[in-house]
C-alpha cells in the first residue's frame, strides 16, 4: 500500500455509525450473493464493502426460469428477489459476514412503506450490518419496489419511513427508469438519505422468435452490464450536480478504467455488479487499478478525484 488516501465514508445521523470503507470499491446487490460464494475465490476482506442480495421480510421464491438472457454486451435478469427472508438472512448468512472486516450493506425491499420501515428497524440493531441500501428500483417484482422508486411522492415516503426507523447510514438505490434521475436523487436527499446509489437495472425484454413469446418467463427483466454504462455514467454525472450527499456509482463497470470514469463523473464509491460473473476477481483488479491510476496521475486523495470531470476547464 502506498500513502494514498483511499478511504471513503458515508455519514449517517449517528457519528458512531459511519460507514467506513477502506477503498471505494463495493459489490452490487444481487450479483454477489451473501459473499460466501466469492470467498471461495479470494479474500473478501480486501473489498471496500459488500452489498448483499436484496432482502424482504418473508422468504421469496423468485420468478420461474429462465431468469437470465444474454444481450449484446449485457444481460437481462428476472430473478424476482429470491431470498431467504429477514430471519433466514440473519440466521444463516450474517454470522459468516460478521467475521469479515469488510462492512456489510443490506439491500432491503418491500411491498409497502411499512415493510421497508419494519426491515429498517429490525436491522437497525443487528450486529454486523453497517448500512442499509433501500431498493426502490427492482424491476422484477409485481408489486412494490420499483413502483416506489419512479415517483417522487412515494420515494419520499419510503425514504422518510426508513430514515425514521434506523440510525444506520441509509443509501437509496435509484431506478434509471425515470425521466429525471437527479430530481429523484434530490427527493431522496430531502427525505433523509445519507447517500444515493445508481443505477439499478433498466427494464428490458427479449423475444423468442421461434416460440413467438418473451424469452424470460417473467416477460420483462432488468438490463445490466457494459451495454448500459454510457447511460449510467450520465446519470451519475447529473446526480452529482444536484445533490450534496455521496453518490455510489454503478452500471456496467467491468474494469478500473470504467470505475475511474464513474469517479470522475462524481461517484464517491463504485459498485461492481455483472462484472463479477464475467471476471470474479474484477473488484480486486479495480481496486488496484484505481490506486495505480492515482499514483500515475499524482493524486493522493480519492476525494480529489471524485467529480473532477466537472471541475476541469474545457
Amino acid at each position: 500500500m502506498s500513502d494514498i488516501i483511499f478511504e471513503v465514508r458515508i455519514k449517517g445521523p449517528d457519528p458512531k455509525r459511519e460507514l467506513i470503507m477502506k477503498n471505494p470499491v463495493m459489490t452490487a446487490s444481487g450479483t454477489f450473493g451473501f459473499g460466501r460464494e466469492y470467498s471461495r475465490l479470494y479474500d473478501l476482506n480486501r473489498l471496500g464493502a459488500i452489498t448483499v442480495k436484496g432482502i424482504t421480510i418473508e422468504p421469496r421464491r423468485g420468478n420461474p426460469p429462465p431468469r437470465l438472457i444474454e444481450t449484446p454486451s449485457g444481460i437481462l435478469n428476472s430473478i424476482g428477489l429470491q431470498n431467504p427472508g429477514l430471519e433466514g438472512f440473519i440466521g444463516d448468512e450474517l454470522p459468516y459476514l460478521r467475521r469479515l472486516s469488510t462492512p456489510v450493506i443490506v439491500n432491503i425491499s418491500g411491498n409497502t412503506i411499512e415493510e421497508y420501515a419494519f426491515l429498517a428497524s429490525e436491522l437497525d440493531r443487528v450486529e454486523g450490518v453497517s448500512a442499509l441500501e433501500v431498493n426502490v428500483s427492482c424491476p422484477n417484482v409485481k408489486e412494490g419496489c420499483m413502483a416506489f422508486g419512479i415517483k417522487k411522492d412515494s420515494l419520499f415516503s419510503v425514504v422518510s419511513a426508513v430514515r425514521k426507523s434506523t440510525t444506520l447510514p441509509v443509501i437509496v438505490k435509484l431506478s434509471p427508469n425515470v425521466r429525471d434521475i437527479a430530481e429523484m436523487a434530490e427527493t431522496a436527499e430531502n427525505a433523509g438519505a445519507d447517500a444515493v446509489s445508481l443505477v439499478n437495472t433498466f427494464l428490458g425484454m427479449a423475444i423468442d422468435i421461434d416460440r413467438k413469446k418473451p424469452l424470460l418467463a417473467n416477460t420483462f427483466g432488468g438490463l445490466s452490464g457494459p451495454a448500459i454504462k454510457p447511460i449510467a455514467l450520465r446519470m451519475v454525472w447529473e446526480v452529482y450536480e444536484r445533490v450534496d450527499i455521496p453518490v455510489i456509482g454503478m452500471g456496467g463497470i467491468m474494469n478500473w478504467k470504467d470505475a475511474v470514469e464513474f469517479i470522475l463523473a462524481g461517484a464517491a464509491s463504485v459498485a461492481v455488479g455483472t462484472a463479477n460473473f464475467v471476471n470474479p476477481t474484477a473488484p480486486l483488479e479495480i481496486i488496484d487499478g484505481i490506486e495505480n491510476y492515482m499514483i500515475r496521475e499524482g493524486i493522493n486523495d480519492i476525494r480529489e478525484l471524485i467529480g473532477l470531470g466537472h471541475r476541469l476547464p474545457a
Partner: protein
Amino acid sequence: MIIDDNARVITNKMIIPAHYVMEIHSPDIALKALPGQFLHIKVTNNTSPLLRRPISIHMRDREKGSISILYRVVGTGTQLLSHYKPGDRINIIGPLGNCFPLAAEFKRIAVVGGGIGTAPLLFLALEAVNSGRDVLYIEGARCRDALLLSEHLGNSGCRVMVATDDGSLGYRGFPTELLKSRLERESFDAVYACGPKPMLKGIKKLSLEYRTPAFISLEERMGCGIGACLSCVCKVIADGGRGAEYRKVCTDGPVFPAEAVMFDE
C-alpha cells in the same frame, strides 16, 4: 477453493462435424475435479458475448495435469471456443458444481448419454469402472455418424450399447427405450444420465417405475456459475412432495436426483 486459471490449451480438435474436444493444462483443476462437475469458460475478451460458458469436464488426466472438454458448436460462444489453438491461454473457473454420487453401494450402474449430453459421462464411467463397478454405458445419437464416445469406451471395461434414432447402428430408437429394455432384464443400483430434457423426463419416469435411483445432470442459463446470482434455477420438489422450490443448477446441481426434479410442461 475454486480455481481461476489462465490455462494453456493443449489441443482443440474437431472429432465429428461441429463437435470438438479441447484439452487444457490445468493441474489444480485436474487434481480436484469430480465426474459431473463443470468449468465456467471465458470465450472472449470483448464484451459480446458477455458471459462465460458452462462446459462439463469430459476427462481428466491427473498425471499430465490436464482436463478435457467435449463441446458442440451451437452459437457464438462455442464458435469462439472452437477457434482456440494449442498454446493459447483460456480463462477457466472450476471445478464447479456437485458431482454424480458414486455411493459405495452402487455396484451395478447404468450410464445414459443422449447427444452432447454424453460429455460429462465418460469421466463418470471410467471412474466407476476403475473403482470396480459394473457399468452399462448407453449412448444415444441421431445416427451412427453422430456418436461421440463409443470407441473410447471400447476397451474401458464398460459394457457399451448404442441407440440411434435412425437405427444406423445398434438399437433403433431412443436411449431411454433401450434402458427400459435392460431394466426389464437386469437390475441396476443407480442410473446416471445427461441429455436433452425429454430424455431426462423419460429417465425420471423409468426411475420411479423401476424403483431405481437415477441422477440427472441439468442445464440452465448461467450467470456467475458459483451460486451467487440465482439465475440458473430449476424447480424441485420440496416439503416432502407437497411444495416446490427453486434450486441452483450451478451449486445445488448440476446433478439432481431425478425424482426431485419437476419438469414443467
